[in-house]
């Protein structure tokens, strides 16, 4: 008897829970927070975003100010370092920590713009190609194949070389180069979903092409796209850094992580901190986005919910 009563009591909150579904955001967070790596990644990203927004307040120095008396000063915990320049200074005496904080602004900006551009264009091209098919699909997909046939960085360099080296052109070039991935992914998911019964059911109730493509089909294709977008975020940061490294992206003295890496390459033996910290910043940011993207995919997929 006792047991039965206990069970009954336990049941009460469960049924209440069933009748009043939790707020969607709350529900999302419940599933998202089960993945610890994703949460750590998210916190890191949040930190990076805060750094980017409040760079002016947080950064101890100006990223451009050259302290002639402190050239190549090591980080504070090493001999010869002091807490005025926590992560040391570079070859012209600029504070590395400040440059990294301001660099977060650029890197996140690059990631956001590249992913937004390529995701929007890729979804539109991919959805229409998958939905309409025929000659249009062939043209779009062959064009994407041609773009994929060229090494992506080479293509980006070619585009930047034509447009002229600057951060904006680098962003545009990267957005174009990563476009085929989004188009192919979207088209493949659309084709897989297109023949399912629920799509036919929507068609029977009279849904037009726009509704079919973007309301019925697209939400069911979003899971791989979200993962691709977060991976693309990190890839964009990495590519922008690579272009910066090659001198085709951000121009000095802009504190862009890739450019910082390139400009201080000759000091790798003498002053490791000048090279290491921008590299670590790139690594951690890219890793954080990948982890968070994974968690996002799991949390957004209703099929994985219990």
């Amino acid at each position: 008897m006792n047991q039965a009563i206990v069970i009954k009591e336990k049941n009460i909150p469960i049924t209440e829970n069933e009748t009043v579904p939790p707020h969607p955001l709350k529900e999302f967070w419940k599933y998202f927070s089960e993945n610890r790596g994703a949460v750590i990644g998210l916190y890191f990203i949040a930190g990076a975003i805060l750094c980017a927004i409040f760079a002016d307040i947080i950064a101890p120095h100006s990223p451009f100010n050259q302290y002639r008396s402190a050239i190549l000063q090591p980080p504070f915990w090493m001999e010869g370092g002091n807490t005025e320049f926590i992560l040391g200074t570079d070859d012209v005496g600029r504070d590395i920590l400040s440059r990294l904080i301001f660099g977060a602004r650029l890197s996140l900006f690059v990631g956001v713009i590249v992913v937004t551009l390529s995701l929007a264009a890729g979804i539109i091209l991919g959805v229409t190609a998958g939905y309409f098919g025929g000659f249009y699909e062939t043209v779009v997909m062959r064009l994407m194949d041609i773009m994929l046939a060229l090494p992506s960085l080479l293509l980006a360099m070619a585009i930047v070389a034509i447009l002229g080296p600057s951060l904006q052109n680098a962003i545009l070039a990267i957005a174009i180069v990563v476009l085929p991935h989004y188009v192919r992914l979207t088209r493949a998911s659309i084709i897989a979903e297109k023949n399912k019964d629920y799509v036919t059911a929507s068609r029977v109730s009279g849904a037009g092409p726009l509704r079919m493509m973007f309301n019925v089909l697209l939400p069911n294709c979003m899971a791989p796209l979200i993962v691709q977008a977060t991976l693309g975020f990190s890839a964009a940061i990495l590519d922008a850094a690579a272009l910066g490294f090659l001198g085709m992206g951000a121009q000095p003295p802009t504190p862009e992580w890739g450019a910082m890496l390139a400009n201080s390459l000759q000091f790798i033996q003498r002053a490791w901190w000048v090279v290491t910290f921008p590299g670590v910043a790139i690594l951690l940011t890219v890793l954080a986005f990948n982890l968070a993207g994974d968690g996002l995919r799991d949390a957004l997929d209703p099929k994985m919910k219990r």
Partner: protein
Amino acid sequence: MSASNPVISASNLKKYYPVKQSGFFKKDILLKALDGASFDIEPGKTLAVVGESGCGKSTLARLVTMIEQPTSGEFDIAGINAVTSGKAQKRTLRSKVQIVFQDPYGSLNPRKKVGDILEEPLIINTSLSRSQRREKALAIMEKVGLTPEQYSRYPHMFSGGQRQRIAVARALMLNPALVIADEPVSALDVSVQAQALNLLMDLQEEMNLAYLFISHDLSVVRLISHEVMVMYLGRVVEQGEKNTIFDKPLHPYTMALLAATPHVNIKSRQKRIRLSGELPSPLNPPPGCTFHRRCAYMSDICRQVAPESRRLENRMVACHHAEKMSTAPSESKIQKGLVKNLVDKGAQDENAI
């Protein structure tokens, strides 16, 4: 009410698909998925379409729901020609015909809540406000036996039977006159099948719905249908009132189908008629009667001339030998016929070699 105008009246519906041949210079060949089907369904009545896989049942469903255009033939829905009518008219017709699919796991959008699934037809076809739509969805949900709490749940939270209820509810949202049920219970457990069928029959009575009920389960057909249409390889072989067909089938294929139905009661079991051979490829159907290679009553004329559908004993039947069946369709004869057929077949095979 029952003697009113038919909800749907189809005449000689055909659908051919061009199939690409491998090889560069080969011409496309035509796959005759549906080769002439004519029928009327009155409000409150059920026409059951029966046949093996690949006989054109689902093609028929796709034509009637206006997902695809027929190659030839016409059909009227509520007196309006659905093949030649314009876009605006088709829109109104669309709301008159709705469909329930076989697989309740694939027929509900997994990203949408039940409420959104049910309201989608209303958003597209009506200008009701959000609260009106919600009210209507809840009313239909109650009708099919779902609770209001389930309004904001996702389909994956439901069992197969409940999902099929949602699918039925969606089909009813626009007050259709005709519901096409494409094997609506064959993906469900037997215990749930009965519930789903009862629901369908109750709704029919309540809303005076016409059903086009596609199935290969004859015991289900016997329960739910008023008329039966038996199909074989895209053609209608026999069509008529349920009892006429079930009591005394005149086409050898119908006989074989009926004899294959499992019965719990030993006394009502019939001797199995085993059909020899496979269903021929619809890409390369046999000449003459498409059934002749598997038929126990096959004769020379069956090999050469395709039988026309004709009226015999209150039904339409497409068989050269239907009269013979009607005089003495005893089991022994069927068995004898089968033996004869096998002998014939042997001889035929030898000739072929």
